[in-house]
């Protein structure tokens, strides 16, 4: 058999080199694509293939002190449409007809919206009712994607809205308790991942929950929904009666700092809130903790507490009122320009005599007086569970524009700015045995598993002794229950104590005619169950705190104590030794 042998030639290397170089080129390109740029291409492919979305965790409910629901979340659906899946006109028409019918949207408008959108998944509507969304998704319509979400509902309507606040579209609290305790309420959101086909439509059974959401904790507040509703109704009526610009009412348990009701006007109302109006942003702040005012004569209670606690005066200490006190060539007059003559310290509170308060501060000394202001919590936030709480302003030696007259005027509630919450907290300390409690709105936090963590009352300071507190209680009893006439702030069925204040609104270099009328009272006087602050801002009828705010206190004290089941019976405060 003949054998053929290839003749060795250099020409064979030419195509070999060519194919070899080509193979090398392909290999290099493959190396570039699959090794060097792997992660970039992989993530692009993932983005093309996978869609993912946040699954919001169920937000915890907010309950009142008796377990009634004030705010809760219900499951809803956010409905999206895949714009890629709706590129086929026939399928888009069929799906849009069904979707439009379920959501009461014009199908043609729906198709236009989806076509005009630059997003792959176009949001059609948030918070679609759970059953409606479920039916839609069951119908397997082309390109419809439903993502679980939750919506906030407030069964009690506008009641306590300014305390509760509101949440945003991303289920994060924006104001009130919803914002202040967002971390507890919100839980941890999860993540849903779904695969798309070449048209962008989700592949059946290819959706999975990559990370499960963890539900938020429930909050039980110290607010009582009945008292809150009563207080809000009363405040609205009071503002109307006295043609005021706004006002606040706070009801507190003086024995532990529990806030039973907290109303502020103007404030957030769910029923009338329009977030498109920039002015409505002003309503999101709770003025009883963010806004300052000069308390006026209510501050005399703090002045008397300090002076009696320091032992420089007693309720029966007398001085002679000449109608004016001269401090560094400045004349400080009484509010009614009257001259009262010889007066006891109890009468100073009864008649709200400015010169008497100046007398107490002179006896006490400026430094000691301001240390009592500090001890009563003025000049710093109380620490309540609300955002944006103001510090308050106390003019002190060394401050710019400070004058020694400031300490004298602080004795009767001028040259000092406080929040209504600071004021009621301080007066509560002066009548509850001398304990300054941190005011609080949260009674307990209930974790999703049911574990309940109660928040204990916190004593921040003890500004005065228990016996001083008992004396102050007796003096304030004498203010509300004078001999010879019926004080407007005296409740019908209970014996109460309290003090009114009427202060002009400060402006640069002085005060104008606008005024703030207020009253802080407590009842029953021998064992206080509630302390109530009533404040009316810029009442046009110019009624004083005694005339405008005290009667509101009296009505509320009767109604609230009856509701709490407190039997009338106390006759007169008795100072304990």
């Amino acid at each position, binding site marked *: 058999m003949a054998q053929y042998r290839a003749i060795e030639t250099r020409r064979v290397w030419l195509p070999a080199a060519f194919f070899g170089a080509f193979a090398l080129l392909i290999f290099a390109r493959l190396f570039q694509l699959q090794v060097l740029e792997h992660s970039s291409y992989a993530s692009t492919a993932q983005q093309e293939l996978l869609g993912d979305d946040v699954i919001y965790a*169920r937000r915890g409910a907010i309950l009142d002190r008796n377990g*009634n*629901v004030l705010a*809760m*979340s*219900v*499951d809803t659906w956010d409905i999206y449409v895949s714009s890629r899946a709706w590129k086929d006109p026939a399928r888009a028409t069929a799906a849009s007809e069904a979707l439009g019918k379920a959501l009461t949207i014009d199908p043609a408008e729906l198709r236009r919206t989806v076509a005009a959108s630059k997003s792959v998944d176009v949001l059609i509507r948030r918070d679609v009712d*759970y*059953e409606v969304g*479920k039916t839609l998704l069951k119908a397997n319509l082309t390109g419809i994607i439903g993502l*679980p979400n*939750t919506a906030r*509902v407030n*069964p*009690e*309507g506008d*009641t306590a809205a300014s305390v509760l606040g509101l949440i945003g579209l991303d289920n994060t609290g924006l104001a009130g308790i919803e914002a202040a305790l967002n971390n507890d309420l919100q839980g941890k959101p999860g993540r849903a991942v779904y695969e798309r086909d070449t048209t962008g439509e989700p592949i059946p*059974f290819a959706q*999975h*929950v990559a990370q499960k959401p963890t539900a938020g904790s429930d909050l039980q507040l110290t607010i009582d*929904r*009945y008292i809150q*509703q009563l207080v809000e109704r009363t405040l609205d009526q009071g503002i109307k009666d006295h043609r005021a610009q706004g006002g606040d009412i706070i009801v507190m348990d003086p024995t532990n700092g529990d806030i039973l009701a907290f109303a502020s006007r103007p404030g957030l109302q769910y029923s009338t809130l329009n977030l498109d109006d920039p002015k409505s942003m002003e309503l999101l702040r709770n003025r009883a903790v963010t806004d300052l005012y000069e308390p006026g004569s209510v501050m005399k209670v703090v002045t008397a507490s300090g002076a009696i606690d320091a032992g420089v005066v007693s309720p029966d200490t007398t001085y002679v009122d000449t109608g004016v006190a001269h401090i560094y060539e400045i004349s400080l007059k009484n509010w009614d320009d009257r001259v009262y003559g010889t007066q006891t310290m109890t009468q100073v509170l009864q008649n709200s005599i400015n010169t008497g308060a100046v007398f107490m501060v002179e006896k006490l000394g400026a430094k000691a007086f301001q240390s009592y202001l500090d001890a009563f919590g003025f000049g710093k936030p109380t620490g309540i569970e609300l955002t944006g709480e103001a510090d308050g302003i106390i003019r002190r030696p060394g401050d710019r524009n400070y004058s020694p007259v400031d300490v004298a005027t602080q004795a009767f509630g001028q040259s000092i700015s406080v929040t209504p919450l600071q004021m009621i907290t301080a007066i509560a300390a002066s009548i509850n045995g001398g304990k300054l409690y941190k005011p609080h709105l949260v009674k307990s936090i209930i974790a999703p598993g049911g574990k309940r963590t109660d928040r204990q009352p916190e004593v921040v300071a003890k500004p005065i002794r228990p016996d001083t507190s008992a004396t102050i209680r007796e003096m304030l009893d004498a203010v509300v229950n004078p001999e010879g006439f019926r004080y407007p702030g005296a409740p019908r*069925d209970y014996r109460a104590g309290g003090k009114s204040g009427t202060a002009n609104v400060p402006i640069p270099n002085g005060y104008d005619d606008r005024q703030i009328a207020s009253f802080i009272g407590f009842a029953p006087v021998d064992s206080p169950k509630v302390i109530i602050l009533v404040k009316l801002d810029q009442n046009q009828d110019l009624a004083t705190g005694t005339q405008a705010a005290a009667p509101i206190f009296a009505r509320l004290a009767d109604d609230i104590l*009856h509701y709490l089941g407190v*039997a*009338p*019976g106390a006759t007169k405060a008795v100072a304990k030794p």
Partner: protein
Amino acid sequence: MAAIHPPLTKEQKKAGTRAPLGANVWVLAGMAILGISAMLPVLQNSAATSQGFRTQAIEADKAKLNGEIRTLEADVASLTSLARIQRRAQEIGLEPGAKPIYVSVSEPGPAPAKLPAQYLPGPDRSSEAPAAWWQSLNTWVPLPAR
């Protein structure tokens, strides 16, 4: 052609009849093992997939039921809201109550209702008399634990 294979001896016959049969058993067993080994992952995958779908379906059911529970809770909350109670009370002709009357009585109040024994705390063991010294000797005896 028949002469190609000489007749088998006795020993060869014995060995010859067994050898093919033995090889078949082992081959069959091996094939069976291979077959089962090959099928096992398929079966496992199939079972896992079915289980996965079932889990997904149950989770979807759970989510649906949870959603319904929330909706019902919201319904209950709105039905027990103060505004709704007040409206309903007006509808059926109820009016706000008169001033409450508080009665003071010198007699003690009624005794609290007795709870079933299962809800009461057990007897206080600490108040029992201490055991006599000789009872400690019982621990030396290997008696069954009570």
